[in-house]
């Protein structure tokens, strides 16, 4: 009973997400997550604790582990690899808590989701959208880091069905968060069922719903579409727009905007590394290679 009373105060995400100092959240979140796990250990069917464990581990893996790996990749392969491995394990932990939370409301759902994902998700209604978003997000991000593991890859339709159902039920959820996620989902290439055209549509809608105050869609679009399409100018424009967003105009999203802007600045510094020289501009005499190989 005491736990139930204190939990909403203890796990108020707004306190974390409005934080201007990411390092403070990085230091504070692990303690909170272990506390939540202790609560779940004592009460395995505590719905709010399970839901927060889903979102909290997902946040930590995305905002700190995978974000740090993206930074490290430019200089230190082994550090990046280890951070991505940790992120993968944490995404799966987040997914498993999310599944347990969903099972409380929809018994037997986890098995149905694997067997017949597109049919199973029709049981979810609009009040499930938040759970779908975080469960689908954790699952999808785990798969994206574990493409060398067929047992994970096999669940791709399940993760996709969860997010498809979420956006079908509540298209403007959380000021465009689902559309922002779909920019990435549609950027996987056509062979995998993605579409750069659709990614652009989701980007436009995400920007519209967030009134241009969320840096995330700009970064996702630049990395997912502009790089794939070798559109260097668009890449630069998108990231410069992300960097120019005034974080104080959306205080509730300070943390993730700060991190997205950090990533945008990093990517801008590495623009030359992310794009091949245009075919019609490459020096046929090989002066470029002569400069690089000394």
């Amino acid at each position, binding site marked *: 009973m005491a736990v139930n009373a204190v939990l909403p105060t203890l796990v108020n995400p707004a306190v974390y997400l409005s934080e201007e100092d990411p390092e403070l959240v990085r230091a504070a979140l692990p303690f909170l997550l272990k506390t939540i796990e202790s609560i779940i250990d004592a009460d395995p069917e505590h719905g709010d604790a399970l839901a927060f464990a889903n979102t909290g581990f997902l946040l930590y893996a995305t905002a700190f582990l995978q974000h740090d790996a993206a930074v490290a990749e430019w200089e230190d392969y082994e550090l990046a690899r280890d951070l991505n491995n940790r992120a993968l394990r944490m995404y799966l932990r987040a997914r498993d808590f999310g599944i347990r939370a969903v099972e409380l409301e929809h018994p037997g759902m986890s098995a149905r989701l694997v067997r017949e994902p597109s049919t199973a998700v029709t049981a979810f209604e609009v009040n499930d959208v938040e759970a779908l978003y975080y469960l689908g997000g954790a699952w999808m991000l785990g798969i994206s880091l574990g493409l060398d593991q067929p047992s994970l890859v*096999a669940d791709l339709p399940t993760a996709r069905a969860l997010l498809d159902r979420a956006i079908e039920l509540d298209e403007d959820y959380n000021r465009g968060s689902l559309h922002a996620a779909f920019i990435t989902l549609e*950027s996987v290439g056509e062979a995998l069922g993605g579409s750069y055209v659709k990614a652009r549509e989701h980007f436009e809608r995400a920007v519209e719903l967030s009134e241009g105050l969320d840096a995330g869609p700009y970064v996702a679009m630049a990395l997912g579409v502009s790089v794939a399409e070798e559109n260097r100018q668009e890449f630069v424009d998108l990231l410069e727009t992300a960097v120019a967003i005034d974080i104080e105009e959306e205080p509730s999203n300070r943390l993730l905007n700060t991190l997205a802007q950090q990533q945008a600045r990093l990517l801008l510094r590495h623009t030359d590394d992310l794009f091949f020289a245009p*075919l019609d501009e490459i020096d046929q005499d090989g002066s470029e*290679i002569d400069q690089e190989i000394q």
Partner: protein
Amino acid sequence: MIKTFRLVFLSVLLISPILLAAQTARLRLGSVLPANSLWDRSLKEMANGWQQATDGRVRLQVRPSSGDEATLLRRMRMNNPQVAALSPLGLQEIDEAFSVFGVPFFFESEAEAVQVLEDLTPRLRAVLAENDLVLLNWGHGGWAHIFSDTSIATLDDLRRAKLFTSAGDDGAVNWYKENGFQPVPLALTDVLMGLNTGLIDAYPSSPYSALVFQWYRQTSHMLDVPLAPLFGATVISQRAWQRISSADQTAILEIAANTQQSVFVEVFEQDAEAVREMQTRGLNVTAVDQSQVSAFRSEAENLTASWRGSMVPADIYDAAVEARNRYRNR
């Protein structure tokens, strides 16, 4: 109720560049392989090994999902990038000699195919050299199998199927037609659409690809007779290679060989796991007994003999047959 927060997908699914930042020698590797796949991971491990073994003199940025291979090869000819990890299709774009590994049902086992690959390596290395490329190592994408919506156990069954073939490979399309098959040339990106609309109902694919592309969900049968090995290669332009010291070249090749060795083992484990996962989701593996396999291969051998001199240079085809027979008679 726990309040929501906004999730940012900070890293995208297929874009995860490694830059081992350059001070001196900097190379870039392009590939169509997806980030965080077995092959991408192996290439990044190899890049890290190169950097360590050469004390940072040779650094390699691995860039996955670098567009289509035809464009990649055009870029390579201009040294941007200088290194590429090519699929069988990419190698066939360079020279028809590499089509020898795509002859249907030509090899009976992995050991046999690998032995032929080793025996043919000097010839294939020369073919690459004629195209200003240096072979660093062989890649392996597993073995293609026939997936279909109804069970296929004989070549006649296969003739009744609407079979996906790669768009642009007119020689293969004509060969299939001349031998009573129903090839449907499509771009790789259109396979899922083709399966969904009934345009095709069978395709050759490695188990992993059938899983990751989700094609198997429209085709619940897999023939348990491997069609062909999917050998790729990592190559570097002559121009870049010549600018690397002999000692560093030796170190690079040794690490590349180690990478090849581990990929050739891991890809089998990956495909086996992919089959198990698909079986739990409804895939039926069509097993055929040894006498059926022998009949299958015998008929296929008669049909594919016409590849000699048409789709595969005669000397390469003959060398492959000789190496294969030598292995079988060892």
